[in-house]
């Protein structure tokens, strides 16, 4: 009898089945939030979804492809400006502009990748930051987009979103929820696919990965471009929420990279669960420490260092070491077949 008759390969686990049901119910409840939540809470949730999306994307880049970028604000800002430019000058509906921002981001990321992929390690990180600064200085020169002081989204563009303030708030909220759900679904489906398996292998060992047929440079390039496109998409939604953009806000390294790195590092880099836990932890901290003023950043830094020392794989790494739990069934499990049961 061959092994194929005695053993079976599973991809889903009981924990992941439960997680997917709970996740779906949560998504439904959150989608209904505009009917049972106040405006301020909706805005906070929207912000959480957008940070979750950014964290998921940065985690793909740094945690899986090993591309530690500190310049993703380049794409966030690009997305914001794409939204403003395409609606104001292109006359597009905001929905179309947001959709098109993915393409803009992906197209821009191709030559950027060609440039910074020549750099390794710390030089790569510095390169990404330099690119983001170039973007910031560049957009500050465009007086039609408000130059250095910025510009507001025209009232008629805002009105075209939906009739009435409540409907607009709800639409904007659903867009952010849809964005987070889509980014998670894309990350999950990608990591589960054979290209995702290759990327996970690269995460663990580049030497072995290349010796087993994986084209490392190509894989990293694809991830960089996809993440660039999607980060631009998130950026356009961020500034649709803010309704105002300036180069300093658009290309803020603190807001769009430092906080995101914090989230991924304390949550657990190189896993899908990590960014979710990290986002929850970050917003809990932010809401409780809001009164501290600038000390708040020092506290965040201290927490990040403490987590890195105590639990280098983040909070999720801690949970997983203790329980062996996996919420996203990315892997494979081999189980013996029981006699008489097919």
């Amino acid at each position: 009898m061959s092994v194929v008759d005695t053993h079976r390969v599973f991809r889903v686990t009981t924990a992941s089945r439960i997680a997917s049901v709970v996740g779906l119910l949560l998504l439904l409840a959150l989608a209904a939030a505009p009917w049972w939540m106040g405006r301020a809470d909706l805005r906070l949730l929207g912000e959480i979804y957008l940070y979750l999306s950014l964290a998921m994307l940065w985690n793909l880049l740094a945690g899986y492809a090993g591309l530690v970028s500190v310049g993703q604000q380049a794409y966030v800002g690009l997305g914001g400006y794409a939204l403003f430019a395409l609606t104001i000058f292109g006359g597009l509906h905001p929905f179309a502009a947001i959709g098109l921002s993915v393409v803009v981001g992906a197209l821009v990321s191709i030559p950027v990748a060609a440039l910074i992929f020549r750099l390794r390690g710390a030089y790569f990180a510095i390169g990404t930051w330099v690119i983001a600064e170039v973007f910031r200085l560049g957009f500050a020169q465009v007086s039609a987009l408000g130059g250095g002081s910025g510009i507001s989204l025209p009232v008629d563009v805002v009105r075209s979103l939906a009739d009435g303030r409540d409907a607009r708030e709800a639409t904007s909220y659903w867009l952010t929820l849809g964005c987070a759900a889509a980014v998670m679904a894309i990350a999950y489906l990608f990591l589960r696919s054979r290209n995702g398996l290759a990327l996970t292998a690269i995460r663990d060992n580049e030497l072995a990965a290349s010796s087993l047929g994986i084209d490392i440079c190509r894989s990293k390039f694809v991830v960089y471009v996809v993440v660039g496109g999607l980060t631009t998409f998130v950026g356009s939604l961020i500034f649709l929420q803010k309704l105002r953009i300036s180069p300093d806000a658009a290309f803020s390294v603190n807001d769009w990279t430092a906080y995101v790195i914090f989230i991924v590092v304390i949550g657990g880099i190189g896993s899908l669960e990590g960014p979710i836990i990290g986002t929850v932890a970050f917003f809990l901290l932010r809401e409780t420490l809001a009164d501290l003023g600038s000390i708040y950043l020092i506290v965040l830094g201290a927490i990040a260092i403490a987590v890195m020392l105590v639990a280098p794989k983040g909070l999720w790494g801690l949970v997983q070491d203790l329980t062996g739990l996996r919420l996203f069934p990315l892997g494979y499990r081999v189980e013996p077949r029981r006699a008489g049961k097919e």
Partner: protein
Amino acid sequence: MSEILGLSGVCKSYGAIVVADSLTFSLRQGEALGVIGPNGAGKTTMFNLITGTVAASSGRVQYNGRDVTHDSAAKRCRAGMARSFQVPQPFGHMTVFENAMVAATQGANLKGREAESTCLDVLDQTGLLDKANAVAGKLALLDRKRLELTRALCAKPKLLLLDEIAGGLTEEECHLLVETIKAIHGTGMSIIWIEHVVHALLKVVERLIVIDFGKMIAEGDPASVMESREVKEIYLGIEVDA
């Protein structure tokens, strides 16, 4: 029979140290070749040069009738070369089965159920099936070495390169390994095997080469190579040093 691998004048040096000195030999389709030589002789380096992990300073590598000197390691693997690493290189956070799946899906370009059943078969053959769900980074050294062999086989190679996989095995385990490799060779696979456990090596290979200071110093039928003056000098030298 036709040639599957040919090295001509392959050189590699790190600064002033020459670690591959004009290596020239060829391997016939379906042949099993053994490689011996003292520590630091350049055996692993030769594998790095064949598989493309390290670029040659000069010389040519021919594989399956094609010049692959400038091909990446990944491309050579997809063309049918697979190796085991002397110092195991597992995908540490993935399970044993997932490690195998990487080789089957990327190296051998298999899909879905076919990839899965290939991995199950190979794991059974290499004795790792019981540990299929174990996290590779937590395996003991012997199992890590088994995993190296497993992954290489899951890539469905035409040319299999084994780098010291028998060290540290018990008598019985070593016997099982030899039987496994014989069986693999029996399917017509071409093999190059670097091994310090010479008695195991000699049960499998049809030809032997000896490398010292990056140079091939002897080559031929295993029995006569082992009897040659060069080999005796090297191994006597080692004994005197020790």
